[in-house]
């Protein structure tokens, strides 16, 4: 995976499978502290201790269709490449928190990529989950919550693609505002093929 946002999409799938009702994605950028931190927190069913111990082993998965689970191990690898680390805190019945620290300035730290597009995909296919996205940089902080957006717009679900696309652009404009590093906003009305 070439972008951190794709890794985030992958890790969030675990939270979705754990039947989380609220998934929060936090990114903290600190150039002065040379830290790029991603925190993914959910209120799903949590990971039992015996699985948690081996969760970053690529040959451990709770799936039955195949015997490998690469998502967490891949992200851990990417973090360690930059001199960072990954930590997973999980309580059965309460939820799981994945904290990944990267060295901000390391050449192997991938760019963020199209995080706005990732949020749009997640919201489009998981209407019942509240996604909260917080991004902190040295220029400010931006917070987005799909539940709050629904309430503000007085809509029952975010299922219209036009609306979701606009939400994506809105997130993008706000991220540009706080000068998010490595963020790539997909151009509007891109001509395909």
């Amino acid at each position, binding site marked *: *995976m070439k972008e951190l946002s*794709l890794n985030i*999409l*992958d890790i969030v*799938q675990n939270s979705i*499978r754990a039947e989380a009702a609220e998934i929060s994605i936090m990114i903290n950028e600190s150039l002065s502290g040379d830290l790029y931190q991603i925190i993914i927190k959910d209120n799903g069913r949590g990971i039992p201790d015996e699985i948690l111990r081996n969760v970053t082993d690529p040959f451990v998965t709770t*799936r*039955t*269709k*195949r015997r490998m*689970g*690469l*998502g967490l191990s*891949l992200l851990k690898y990417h973090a360690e490449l930059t001199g960072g680390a990954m930590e997973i805190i999980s309580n059965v019945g309460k939820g799981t928190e994945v904290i990944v620290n990267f060295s901000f300035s390391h050449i192997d730290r991938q760019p963020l990529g*199209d995080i706005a*597009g*990732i949020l*749009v*995909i997640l919201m*489009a*296919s998981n209407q019942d989950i509240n996604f909260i996205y917080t991004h902190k940089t040295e220029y400010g902080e931006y917070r987005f919550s799909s539940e*709050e*957006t629904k309430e*503000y*717009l007085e809509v029952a679900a975010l*299922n*219209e*693609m*036009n*609306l*979701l*696309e*606009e*939400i994506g*652009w*809105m997130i993008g*404009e*706000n991220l540009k*505002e706080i000068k998010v590093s490595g963020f790539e906003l*997909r151009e*509007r009305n891109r001509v*395909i*093929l």
Partner: protein
Amino acid sequence: MSKITSLADLKKRREELKSGLDIRVKAIDPESVVQVKVAMATCGIASGAKTVMEFFLEQLERRNVEAVVTQTGCMGYCYAEPTIEVKLPGQDPVVFGFVDLKRADQIIEKYIKTGELVDGIIPVNYQTIDLKE
């Protein structure tokens, strides 16, 4: 188009658009519309499932196809990612592998609109895999 930077802008724009657009109520019964499932596990994401999913979300809406696009886990065809499963109403699901944007376009234009099969079909046997477990 003016920039949308806050929820207030978004709401204003919704209100402007409302008059011009007929608001489509999504069918509640997914069985009566086209269902597209994009496999989105590590293998899928790494080979470009995000772009494929965005394409289906946007283009089905733009081409006025009543459809539900969702994501699913790994179907076990990691070698053929990105894979998608398309279920036309009243028919058995068909799994397509190696889906890039060109093939995604063919799937919409040929398979979804006219029922004509296109390249890249993976002979489906995952029902039998389930039984074996």
